[in-house]
């Protein structure tokens, strides 16, 4: 056997031994399947699951700048045309404490400024135009989530607790999730549940100077399966059921009925079902991976939504990964939605002109670059990532024709920087 062939065989065996070590240590495919499955549960979500994977310390920091595009003058009848800007700092820490237990902590802080759509009314020609608030809204949100994950030979169990706090809004959430591996860890079943209790204490407006506090409770249950298909591809499918009960309206929005304004009113309960399927395939020859995600949503407010996202992750020089992706989203309108209403709307009838409940479609493009800093800094897993997303929504992107487009539909851009390291 030639020296070249011996060297190739030796390298192949070394790669195989590394793959076995990775699979046994809980990295490798095991890690990937796990990350998939719990990315479903409120509060618990992907965060706790991801933290349990690496069997070592890891720390990540992210900074993002979110900017909504200003509305054209033809669509605004009063208020500011400028919309929201949000700056976010986020931290993620995972710490193994021995005995197959891992602790996780996620903290995010957002600062928001700008103006928001208040109501939709008709202009003299009968076309809908939006009345915006002034551009003086300022708010901040702090989100904290703590988790503990128990890692067994063929299972993971996670518990989480967290809170989200704003000047006028407080949410507390808890979650539980469990995963179990079968078939030499080629198949992973997962299930979990989450619970959140939220309180909103709205600030007064000129329409309602002394609003009262409101509450809601949200519970969810999720079931999923992840499966290795062959040595280069894997798929995952999961179903989530969520039930919300309480005040589900928006206290900062009004509806217009023949020029008479009244509060946004929505049903007191909402059941949502989400079915998410994901597929990943690696193409060894070109060192690239295909990502394909499809999600279908349905709820008791009659909103049906479809989301399709396709991405390509290209490795270059074993140092950089470039990942362009495209995301398409479309939804139907809620059963109580209209851009504006006729005079004589009963005060007890549910009614909303919120653009988020209107029929529309959205297209977004994202470009991401990740650079490994492990060799440069001599720190394992150190890397830096930069990501840009452009999101545009409108009736023209929807499936089927839309009678009247909501003039408050949003376009936005997000620039995000992430740094990660681990030991």
């Amino acid at each position, binding site marked *: 056997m030639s020296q070249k062939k011996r060297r190739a065989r030796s390298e192949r065996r070394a790669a195989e031994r590394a793959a076995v070590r990775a699979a046994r240590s809980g990295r490798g495919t095991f890690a990937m399947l796990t*990350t998939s499955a719990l990315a479903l549960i409120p509060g618990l979500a992907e965060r706790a699951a991801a933290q349990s994977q690496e069997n070592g310390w890891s720390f990540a920091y992210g900074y993002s700048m979110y900017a909504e595009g200003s509305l054209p003058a033809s669509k605004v009848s009063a208020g500011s045309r400028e919309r929201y800007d949000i700056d976010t700092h*986020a931290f993620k820490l995972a710490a193994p404490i021995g005995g197959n237990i891992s602790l996780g902590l996620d903290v995010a802080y957002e600062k928001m400024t700008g103006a928001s759509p208040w109501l939709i009314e008709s202009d003299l020609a009968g076309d809908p135009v939006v009345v915006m608030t002034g551009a003086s809204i300022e708010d901040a949100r702090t989100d904290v989530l703590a988790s503990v994950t128990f890692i067994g030979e063929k299972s993971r169990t996670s518990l989480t607790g967290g809170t989200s706090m704003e000047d006028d809004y407080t949410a507390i959430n808890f979650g539980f999730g469990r995963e179990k591996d079968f078939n030499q860890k080629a198949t992973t079943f997962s299930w979990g549940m989450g619970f959140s209790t939220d309180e909103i204490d709205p600030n007064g407006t000129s329409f309602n100077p002394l609003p009262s506090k409101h509450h809601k409770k949200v519970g969810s249950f999720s079931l999923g399966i992840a499966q290795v298909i062959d040595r280069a591809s894997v798929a995952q499918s999961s179903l989530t059921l969520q039930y919300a009960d309480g005040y589900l309206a928006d206290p900062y929005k009004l509806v217009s009925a023949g020029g008479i304004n009244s509060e946004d009113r929505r049903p007191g309960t909402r059941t949502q079902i989400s079915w998410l399927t994901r597929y990943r395939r690696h193409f060894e020859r070109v060192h690239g991976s295909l990502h394909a995600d499809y999600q279908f949503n349905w709820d008791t407010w009659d909103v049906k939504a479809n989301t399709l996202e396709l991405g390509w992750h290209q490795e270059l020089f074993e140092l950089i990964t470039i990942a362009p992706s495209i995301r398409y989203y479309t939804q139907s309108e809620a059963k109580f939605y209209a851009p504006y209403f006729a005079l004589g709307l009963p005060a007890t009838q549910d009614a909303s002109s919120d653009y988020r409940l209107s029929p529309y479609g959205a297209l977004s493009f994202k470009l991401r670059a990740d650079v490994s800093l492990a060799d440069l800094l001599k720190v394992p897993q150190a890397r830096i990532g930069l990501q840009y997303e452009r999101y545009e929504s409108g009736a023209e992107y929807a499936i089927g024709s839309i009678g009247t487009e909501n003039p408050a539909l949003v376009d936005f851009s997000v620039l995000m920087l992430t740094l990660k390291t681990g030991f």
Partner: protein
Amino acid sequence: MRALRIALLLGICALASACQHVDPWERNLLARPDMAWEPDELAATQENHTYFSKEAAMPGGGVGGGGCGCN
């Protein structure tokens, strides 16, 4: 409900029959970072929160305690 159960069973059978046996030492490609469901969990969390605030659907299967999203 019965139809849903049958559909689920058929789906699992179809998936299982399409799968090859892959030994743990053959899974090096699946272990690549670019094959993860979310290669950057921090970025994915931020993205999901944005979609939760702007769209009617539950992104990624659900967001609890994600704030008001009233804007």
